[in-house]
């Protein structure tokens, strides 16, 4: 599914990477421990997390995930958003908790 459609279906805020929403995403990975994410997430997946440390951008870029979705509107420092923009990482934000956000995704036949 295109990120564009995911943003619309899940009512996400686009914090960085607005120009890359044509990108296709497939599959999900959900974790906040970045060592687990490095070991488990796959290229092209949507990664759901509450972790907002700057390192999420380096890891998303390294793993080539389709986008990071920060849930529960966890506060994100401007430096993290700027780095995402600089690295071409799509950074999205959901106002809902992870479960509700992912449930919507499933209902949208992702």
């Amino acid at each position, binding site marked *: 599914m295109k990120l564009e459609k995911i943003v619309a279906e899940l009512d996400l805020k686009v914090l960085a990477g607005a120009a890359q929403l044509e990108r296709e995403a497939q599959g999900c990975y959900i974790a906040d*421990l*970045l*060592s*687990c*994410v*490095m070991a488990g997430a796959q290229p092209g997946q949507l990664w759901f997390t509450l*972790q907002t*440390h*700057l*390192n999420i951008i*380096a*890891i998303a870029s390294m793993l080539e995930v389709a986008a990071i979705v920060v849930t529960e509107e966890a506060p994100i*420092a401007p430096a993290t958003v700027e780095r995402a923009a600089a690295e071409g990482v799509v950074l999205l934000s959901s106002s809902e908790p992870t479960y509700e956000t992912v449930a919507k995704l499933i209902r949208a036949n992702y």
Partner: protein
Amino acid sequence: MAAIRAYQADLHIHTVLSACAEVEMIPPLIVAEALSQGLYLIAITDHNATANAAAVMEAARGTGLTVLPGMEFQTQEEVDLLCIFGSLAPALIWQPEVSAHLLPLQNDPELFGPQFVVDAEGDFVREELSFYQGPAQIPLEEAARTVRALGGLAIPAHITRPAKGLLGVLGLWPSALHVDAAEVSPNLSPLEARQRFSSLADIPLITNSDAHWLDTIGQIRTIFFLAAPTITELRRALNGVEGRYFRIS
């Protein structure tokens, strides 16, 4: 110049102010155990709290054991950071900063254990109800910067542990993080740690016991070669300058 001598050190010791520590972790017993283990330098590092450090310093007076006040601070990202100070004054500036950013919860002694402030004899002074077991909303880099600006040492604790260890939580060494050293577990040698994580190449790696009960004090330690057991000398040894150095046991 003062002669440089070996100081057996354990810079990560909890007291009864840490909910997860045993009730035996009171100042006179900690000092007695440290001395019997041949330690000359320890740091008191309770979770997000410093209130028992002065009592341990007092209990050690005249014994030859130097006690530095410190804290095992849990950052916003849930990374444990040892903050070690040369005296109480900077610790007393750091504590309210931490307290102001704790989660607005109360400790449940039934669930986590009680958090006791005690005097130098180990007698009860008060129970603290702040939620010291959780993170304080201060980012890692900012906490390290503040502690170092106060003249303290910032040392991420047990960095390879999945829970609350820097590399477990954050996966990579953050590029904007400046610290004085990192604490590794003894089952991962500095050489292995640096092979696994190349970002550790320039970071001094030390080991400590993380003692929560008496008989682990000093079981894991670092030996510092210093002219005096002070924070300035420790910093020199970590940087390997002016003839000061360290090695892990």
